[in-house]
């Protein structure tokens, strides 16, 4: 049985049907005028041979082509793109089945930050009364490593609400190079979680090694096809409206191999997209449609996710502002556009502007977590542990986020109302009304341990003390002390024999022999 996710019975939508059509028409017009600049020759050729108007752009420092994509190509791609996408997992019970028309949300980590944020707690004494001490968290940022990535996957394996794993930290060890990064990041992830693993590709040269590794771990070529344990994120369009040379190559090759791929665009309203809501949505929608069109022309039927990471610019720094309410508005709109096309949507929530866990982080991320979840995206990424825009990952924050999603998931349970329930309730009301104390408390007990009542916030301190971070830290360490189901020794041996570039220290069985 695949994971259940959370079904949103009545998704929150900002746009009317008429507005959705207006945005769609605007995107179609954008694809024709001004069209896209392609820095990728093959993409231009594929589109041209299928009816797009392609002209060489001169003068230019790099060879590039203006591509005008006609509506009929887009509609053909939207027709052939699968409306249901399966993402497999080492443990098949962790598979995700995403249907474009069904607003069933899966919560996912993400997305490739450079900084890993450690935390420890220091005791501080009160100046006027040194016998009074408080524990204060101290945060220590540092460059992420492959060991951190293993730890992140291990932690995410045990976060109850997390449905799939996007590596949240970039591995920057001295022995990691462009040529071995992909195999190591995927192996470190796959070996420490039995959930689905998705990532971006650093080097196209590593794609076949990765696919071979996934075949070995999944149990064979057919098994991988049936249970795609890995998938890819491609940002082939750089906003505004440019096919990038290398990532477009990557997407073309992934499509040729038929593995699931996210066509993601991340415009910033105000700098690389219009600041107005309809403007950024029309542009990002055009960019995603362009990617889907290209991918379907390469290999019709390739499973694709409509990937949207729209964000508003901060006016003081021009950095991304994930905490701005407009960012959530844009994401909700994109979910609605994806549903209009019946494509599963890869959406974004939970990132915040502040750099450390605390009140601002909780407020900003919970705001977008709730609102974007309510819109019903199938694949909600970035939702665990990201801080400082998209540049820092803190495992402690991921544990806090898991608690947020438990609350959100509980809230989204459908109402339990039936005639028999109402009859029982009426009996209860009449019974209690006839007692002198008029309390319903005795009727709570049958529900108390049935899972029908939500639990208190798990990081609530005793009395007035705010010990949220310290208690979450305890929980994080507890989760990390629980074992994970690694890839079995035989498969691990084959993977290390057949896949070049893997760091020997990632072979846990060989490492154990040394101890």
């Amino acid at each position, binding site marked *: 049985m695949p994971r259940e996710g959370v079904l949103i019975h009545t998704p929150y939508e900002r746009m009317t049907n008429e507005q959705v059509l207006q945005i769609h028409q605007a995107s179609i017009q954008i694809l024709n005028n001004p069209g896209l600049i392609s820095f990728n020759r093959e993409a231009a050729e594929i589109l041209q041979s299928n009816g797009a108007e392609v002209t060489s752009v001169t003068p230019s420092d790099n060879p590039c082509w203006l591509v005008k994509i006609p509506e009929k190509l887009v509609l053909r791609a939207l027709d052939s793109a699968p409306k249901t996408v399966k993402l497999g997992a080492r443990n098949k019970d962790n598979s995700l089945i995403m249907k474009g028309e069904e607003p069933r949300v899966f919560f996912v980590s993400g997305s490739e930050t450079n900084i890993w944020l450690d935390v420890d707690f220091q005791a501080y004494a009160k100046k006027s009364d040194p016998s009074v001490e408080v524990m204060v968290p101290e945060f220590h940022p540092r460059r992420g490593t492959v060991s951190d990535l293993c730890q992140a996957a291990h932690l995410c394996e045990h976060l109850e609400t997390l449905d799939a794993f996007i590596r949240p930290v970039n591995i920057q060890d001295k022995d990691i190079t462009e040529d071995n990064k992909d195999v190591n990041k995927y192996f470190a992830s796959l070996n420490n979680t039995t959930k689905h693993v998705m990532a971006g590709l650093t080097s196209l040269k590593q794609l076949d090694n990765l696919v071979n590794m996934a075949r070995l771990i999944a149990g064979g070529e057919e098994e991988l096809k049936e249970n795609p344990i890995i998938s890819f994120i491609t940002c082939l369009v750089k906003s505004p409206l440019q096919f990038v040379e290398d990532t477009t190559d990557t997407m073309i090759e992934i499509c040729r191999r038929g593995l699931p791929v996210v066509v993601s665009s991340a415009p910033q309203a105000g700098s690389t997209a219009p600041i107005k809501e309809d403007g950024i949505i029309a542009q990002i929608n055009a960019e995603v449609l362009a990617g889907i069109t290209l991918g379907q022309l390469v290999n019709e039927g390739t499973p694709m996710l409509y990937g949207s990471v729209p964000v508003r610019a901060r006016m003081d720094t021009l950095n991304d502002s994930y905490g701005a309410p407009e960012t959530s508005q844009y994401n909700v709109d994109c979910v609605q556009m994806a549903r209009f096309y019946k494509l599963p949507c890869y959406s974004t929530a939970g990132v915040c502007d502040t750099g450390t866990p605390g009140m601002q982080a909780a407020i900003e991320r919970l705001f977008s977590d709730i609102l974007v979840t309510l819109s019903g995206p199938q694949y909600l990424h970035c939702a665990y542990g990201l801080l400082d825009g998209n540049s820092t990952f803190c495992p402690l924050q991921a544990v806090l986020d898991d608690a947020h999603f438990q609350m959100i998931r509980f809230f989204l349970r459908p109402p339990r109302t039936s005639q028999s329930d109402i009859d029982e309730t009426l009996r209860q009301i009449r019974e209690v009304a006839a007692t002198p104390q008029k309390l319903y408390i005795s009727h709570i007990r049958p529900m*108390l341990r049935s899972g029908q009542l939500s639990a208190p916030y798990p990081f609530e301190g005793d009395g007035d003390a705010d010990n949220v971070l310290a208690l979450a830290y305890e929980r994080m360490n507890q989760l990390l002390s629980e074992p994970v189901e690694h890839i079995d020794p035989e498969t691990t041996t084959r993977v290390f024999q057949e896949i070049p570039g893997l760091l020997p220290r990632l072979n846990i069985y060989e490492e154990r022999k040394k101890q």
Partner: protein
Amino acid sequence: MSEGTIAALKENVIQGRKTKDDEGIEAGMAGKPGVLELTHLALEQKIPLETIITQALTAGMEVVGEKFSKKEYFIPDMLASAEAVGEAMEILKPYLEASDVETKGKFVIATVKGDIHDIGKNIVAILLRGAGYEVNDLGTDVPVEKIVEVVRDDKPGFLGLSALLTTTMVVMGEVVQALKENNLRGEVKVLVGGAAVSDEYAEEIGADAYCVDGFEAIKKLDAFQEGKA
């Protein structure tokens, strides 16, 4: 046989099962006798009252209290057990009156004049009954004169006054003053509680204690008992 009855009675207090129809916490208990049926059985088996109270009812409540402290139990569990014990004590009452076994004492409780809020008061009453006190609940909006009359006539060792509002909590001070004027203040310990009340306010009006909830009320009453001993 009596040992089995006492053990079952204690276990059913822990499970908060008043009657055979209650489910309790562990599965498969519905249909088996609960606290009230087992109390009757214990009396039929001529088990001494002191044994029933100390080894089953009180001992069971102690376990419930421990589980609550460890957050294994919640307030509804505590109240279910206390309610079952309170009703068991009502069954035992005529036998107690005919014997030399003493209860923990009489406790009169009321929400004062002008205030009709009674959720907290009701919970305190249930918990104190479960802890072995004889509770006389006068209800809500109770006039000062009525409270003084009951203290004079029934001679309870303890009086609990409840008020939710800042506008009605002043009546608690009037009750304390009236008890003094009627020479009854030395006869009864006055405990006050409610959302607007505090330790400072209790001291200001001359009450003996402020209790934040029913659990603290039990602790303070038990401490008064120990002080008396």
